[in-house]
């Protein structure tokens, strides 16, 4: 794969076209700066997310399987920046090996054969691709010196480890390395792989406030000035619920929650104004100005 020109199939998923548009913007900005062409999967559909696999095992397989089928033609590795999309695609890929019954039903329904799935990369794996990492290292314009960032992986990106086969499920370090590579100081903290509450953010706000609040609190206590994420839902929960959580805990947080790609883009010299940082609920610009990064 690395022999070919740097092109990747791109599966933004629903979030990156809606609530996490700034994630989409920063992923594309990093890709552009790194000289990578992203080819959006034609006529892609929703990965099914939590809803499908909580209700119908076949649909949970069929939706991401169709995305893989749509991407097949390009022959490219797929970049899936959303942690849930990534998890669903990886699970479908794994199930395709294990469950011939699901594959048969899927192929019958859709009238096409499912070929061998390509490599599926989450955003951390993408940034660690040798060519991408080299271009980033060579193209640093504004190293994030003196910026203490807690890398937050959440639960989905690294789990289940048998499916993702990515990093250490309990003590991951891939994002730490990326942060260090753009000059930031990664801050190790115990909440790295804890759950933010995910989609319970709609039905059980109280739980999400507690879970996300604890993560932000642990990052803050560990000395972080900001948190980096690689998942739209994690961003929403940590960003949107930290105010309520802080009030409950009687503390002040004010920790900006950046997508890892936003931080990389900044380091590569992309103007903060182009990244849509204003869409974050917790002020994300003040810290950058204070550190003379914006």
């Amino acid at each position: 794969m690395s022999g070919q020109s740097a092109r990747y199939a791109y599966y933004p998923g629903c979030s990156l076209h809606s609530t996490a548009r700034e994630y989409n913007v920063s992923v594309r900005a990093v890709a552009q700066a790194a000289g990578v062409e992203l080819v959006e999967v034609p006529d892609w559909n929703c990965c099914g997310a939590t809803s499908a696999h909580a209700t119908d095992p076949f649909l949970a397989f069929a939706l991401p399987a169709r995305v893989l089928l749509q991407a097949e033609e390009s022959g490219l590795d797929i970049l899936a920046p959303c942690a849930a999309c990534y998890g669903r695609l990886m699970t479908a890929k794994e199930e395709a090996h294990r469950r011939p019954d699901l594959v048969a039903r899927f192929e019958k329904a859709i009238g096409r054969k499912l070929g061998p799935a390509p490599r599926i990369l989450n955003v951390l794996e993408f940034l660690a691709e040798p060519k991408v990492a080299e271009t980033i290292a060579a193209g640093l314009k504004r190293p994030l010196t003196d910026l203490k960032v807690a890398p937050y992986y959440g639960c989905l990106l690294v789990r289940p480890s048998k499916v993702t086969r990515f990093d250490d499920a309990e003590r991951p370090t891939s994002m730490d390395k990326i942060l260090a590579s753009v000059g930031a100081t990664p801050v190790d903290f115990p909440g790295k792989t804890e759950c933010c509450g995910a989609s319970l953010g709609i039905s059980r706000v109280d739980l999400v406030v507690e879970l996300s609040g604890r993560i932000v609190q642990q990052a803050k206590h560990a000395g972080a000035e900001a948190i980096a994420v690689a998942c739209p839902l994690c961003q929403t929960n940590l960003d949107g619920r930290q105010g309520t959580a802080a009030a409950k805990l009687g503390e002040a947080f004010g920790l900006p929650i950046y997508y890892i790609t936003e931080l990389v883009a900044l380091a590569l010299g992309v103007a903060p104004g182009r990244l849509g940082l204003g869409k974050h609920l917790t002020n994300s610009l003040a810290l950058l100005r204070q550190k003379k990064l914006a």
Partner: protein
Amino acid sequence: MKRVGVFLCWCGSNIAGTVDVGKVAEQARRLPGVVHVEENKYTCSEPGQAAIVKAIKDQRLDRVVVASCSPRLHEATFRRTVESAGLNPYFFEMANVREHCSWIHTDKETATPKAFDLVRMAVAKALRNEALTRGSITIEKRALVIGAGIAGIQAALDIADAGHEVILLEREPTIGGRMAQLDKTFPTLDCSQCILTPKMVDAAKHPNITLYTWSELEKVAGYIGNFTVTIRRKARGVDETLCTGCGVCQSKCPVKVPSEFDEGMGMRKAIYSPFPQAVPNRPVMDRANCTFFKTGKCKICERFCEAKAIRFDQEDSLIEVKVGAIVTATGFDLFKVEKYGEYGYGLYPDVINSLQFERLVNASGPTDGKIKKPSDHEIPKSVAFVLCVGSRDEQKGTTYCSRACCMYSIKHAIQFRDKVKDGRAYVFYMDIRTPGKSYEEFYKRAAVDYGVEFIRGRPSKIFSRNGKMVLKAEDTLLGRPIEVEVEMVVLAPAMLARNDAAKIAQTMSISYDGYGFLNEAHPKLRPVETNTAGIFLAGVCQGPKDIPDTVAQASAAASKVIGLLSHEQMATEPMIARVSEALCSGCLWCKPICPYQAIEAKTITEKVQGKIVSREVAAVNSGLCQGCGACTVACRDGAMNISGFTNDQLLAEVDELLGASRPACAAE
């Protein structure tokens, strides 16, 4: 004409409940060669056996078939019965109509014809059985014990006390093994070293024991009663005969490296004796860390050694010993707890493993027995003990229970509460398993008398908060997530087979299980024997166990060795391979296939068309052959046969079975 007697056993209702024994008897009467058929409720009983003897005499039987249970149970019994009536015991044949038929079927309609099939096959084979005679071999009256932990020491002492020579082999610089590292032993809280070191000294001083430390097993050849073992004596760097054990070399050596004996909690020198009571009290030179071997300069130890015992140029040497029996007591490794990333071992200095805690709490350990946190050397006011780290966890560790961890962790909690009166001790467990004499009482004492707090829940995460360690878990009795803050965490690692257990097993041609634990010959009835005659097991190399069980097993293994060595000669089973030299073409395909190296080429001379010619044929060493039969399958000429299981005998059984079904096939 052969005269076969068939004895059908009911085994109470075990067989008769599923097989119509009367019907089988009726059919068996019509089999060619069968002159006598008899049913018995229990053929193995005294009247049952007497009936066989009587029938042999009255009916002049020369072949006996018993249809009953597995030959593993009663083949030896019935062979003796037949022998007592004056017949060659190998004229006896057994049909297994219990394990192979009645126990595994429920339908009498199908089980009965199957039982008859088994009986007529046995009759067909019995008609071709030949008289066989047992051989005998001379026994080398000396034993080798591999590994000098408590298991090896105990076995060696027992064998030596019975008057036999023992070679005790240990790859570490000193004997003592894991037990020497421990502080106290449960459930009596005896000082581990105080009860072990006298045994260590006994082993070293015993006139019948030759001790080889810093030595490894290189090769094992031969067979029961006649093993030839090659031992590698690693270069110690010290002339053991001149060294006085004064210790000056260690004190002068400028190099400090983490001590293996102290599990990295303390330091040792590059020339060192692992602990003060080491046996033998002779240091070894650690060449990987020695300044002289790294830079070519130093030799401070040599300068200060008054006995002139330092040898930088010493080399490994190989010695060969002859023994009649081997006890394998190679011990265990610990599960690497860093595999649990969520427990932070290696990240947080105050998260340690149980063996490290033993060193901390040990009076002769690096902290003189004061329980101090590795991070700041302060005494912790609270400690959490986490059980089953690697045990009973198919995801990250092993499936099995390591058996000793509950008890030693309870012991640790008691020791901590004893030393730190105002401290709090927590034990996180899934189940507390205390099967052993006075074990449950020990557990109760920990909870009631020592106030140890037991929490049923496996921590999901251990992290640091404000300089303390926080354990996150679900208290499954409360059904609620909890967080417990402590100053130190002790993880109880699973006991694993030695990482080179497979190599040890292969060196000795003994089998091992999926985990690497060495296999006993039978889990209940032959627990210390291996499937290779003359090799016995003791201690954790066979499976996780605590000290009392290890010592009991070591003495059991020793008693087996003593039994073996008490004879001058031993009988060998005649079921071994034999070559028909007339048929053998000398291709020797059998040679590489033989797992026991029992086949060699041999030159024979014979007369062919009046001329004397020489040619090569296979020859079987009857001492080495275990009768596995691999060679008979490899032999293209049909020249190789296992006595008692010849091609002719086995094919007779197959023919008998297929012969009956042939008419049915023909009718189609």
